[in-house]
């Protein structure tokens, strides 16, 4: 994981469920790039085409609610999203992201799509629109999984 991320933000609302992130009918593949084409297709069909690698998603509460489909995280990874910030995350989405080494931040941020953001994971600081936000560091247990690059590497490294 990079210690520092900068990019454009895309702002989404509350309760973005996994059926919105990637509708079930596309779950016939686990190819990240293929899945990425259909990100948020029902609610904003043009969004997937506008997102650039390195961009950051900022969402409201309960992001990723619903299904256990890891495809939701794969879809977001396939877009090249570098981090998802949300007021809160649904449980399985949170696990899947950690296990795939995708950084998540729990924070309430005021922003508009197109704003520039910079995130410093060492200092746990977010800079956006000349405003500074701090966020809680991960517990060591989760940090180790993310730093290993995900659960598979972690399990190898820690010899489960």
């Amino acid at each position: 994981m990079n210690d520092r991320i900068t990019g454009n933000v895309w702002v989404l609302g509350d309760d973005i469920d996994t059926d919105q992130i990637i509708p079930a009918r596309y779950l016939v593949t686990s190819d990240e790039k293929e899945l990425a084409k259909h990100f948020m297709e029902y609610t904003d069909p043009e969004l997937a085409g506008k997102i650039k690698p390195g961009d950051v998603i900022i969402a409201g509460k309960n992001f990723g609610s619903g299904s256990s489909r890891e495809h939701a995280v794969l879809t977001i990874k396939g877009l090249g999203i570098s981090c998802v910030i949300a007021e809160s995350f649904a449980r399985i989405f949170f696990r899947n992201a950690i296990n795939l080494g995708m950084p998540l931040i729990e924070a309430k941020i005021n922003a508009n799509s197109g704003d520039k953001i910079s995130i410093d994971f060492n200092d746990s600081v977010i800079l956006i629109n000349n405003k500074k936000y701090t966020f809680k560091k991960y517990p060591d247990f989760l940090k180790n999984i993310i730093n290993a690059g995900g659960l598979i590497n972690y399990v190898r490294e820690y010899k489960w």
Partner: protein
Amino acid sequence: MGKTAVEKVFSKKSHTDSYAGDYVVADVDYVMVNDITGPIAVDAFNSIGNAPVRDKIVIIPDHFVPPKDIKSAIQYRKVKDFALNNGIENFFDIGNGGVCHQVMMEKGFAAPGRLIAGADSHTNTYGALSSISVGIGSTEAGVIFATGKMWFKVPETIKININGKLKKGVEGKDVALKVLSITGHDGATYKCMEFSGTAISSLPVNERMTIANMTTEAGAKCSFFDTDDKTIEYLNKRVRGDYEIVKSDADAHYESIINIDADDIEPSVAVPNSPANVKPLSEVRVEIDQAYIGSCTNGRIEDIRKAAEILKGRKINKRVRLMVVPASQEVYNQALREGLIDIIVNAGGYFSGTTCGACLGGYMGVLGPGEVCISSTNRNFIGRMGDKTSKVYLANPSVVAASAILGRIASPEEI
């Protein structure tokens, strides 16, 4: 300090003295995957390179089987090959399986005190049988295939006491919707929802399964119901191996306690686009195009009996397609023996083999633009059962059957 049931199970399975908030690495009793979540789990397993922990692995294709297209056939083949090539005995192919959660319970994997991880969000369902069963992702399921273990955060517990006598027409689904109307769609995120009270103990096991199933819609990690005579009667017919009954201590710490008077629970409908968007049935009168009875929520034999009782000797409304999809082959066989399929087909309904298909807009009952469905399933998100402009209303199976007859959302009392 005393412990909740979930703290006890995670302590035991991780060989630690753990409480809510602790991270543990625990031995998992069973890990289950389906045809959607399984392929990624197989890749994860292969990349680790261990031998599989065969006895713990359960594979149940259910979402897009029989395969709906070539891509789903390839995914299904991948989990099937994994099972056959690795000597996984607990592989339940179509004809012998069904919707994964129903199979996990009726084939005796779910039992009190067990820790079960399932790569499907509605794994919460086995809390009805006093299991600690949690939904997980695919990569981690693959890691359990290879190690038998997984990391967990021990959850806080919300206690839900429901006391009194449930009103006529109120089913497990209505209890679940009442609870969701209080917690909202994320009010139990990361938490265990533990149910007790006289209204709960008077409910049959199948209705408890419906309630347990829908704790997922409140964001819960798992659910828990105490083991009683009804649980044991269900288990005696099917359980594999020994199990240990577990119960929360009297002085256990609960994150919060919700008290509900059974008298305050009405037959209800969750209106689009959230299962927590609950209205009394009497206030919802919407014309429908499809009525769907099935799924891990309400596709059990008791649900099909209720529907058949309402449909018997009647015809469904011309504007409606009624789909009845049993939650497992065992449920199908029982419905056949009891003559329920005849009743449903004679009423003009369509009775199919078991699949998750339509519940998630996969196939076998996908909604077109603007179509409206009353469904016994658990989710009514935007586009859940098909086109993004279609709408899903959630209700108990009796309401679904009555609605199929009247062509609009209706109470069985109107029939």
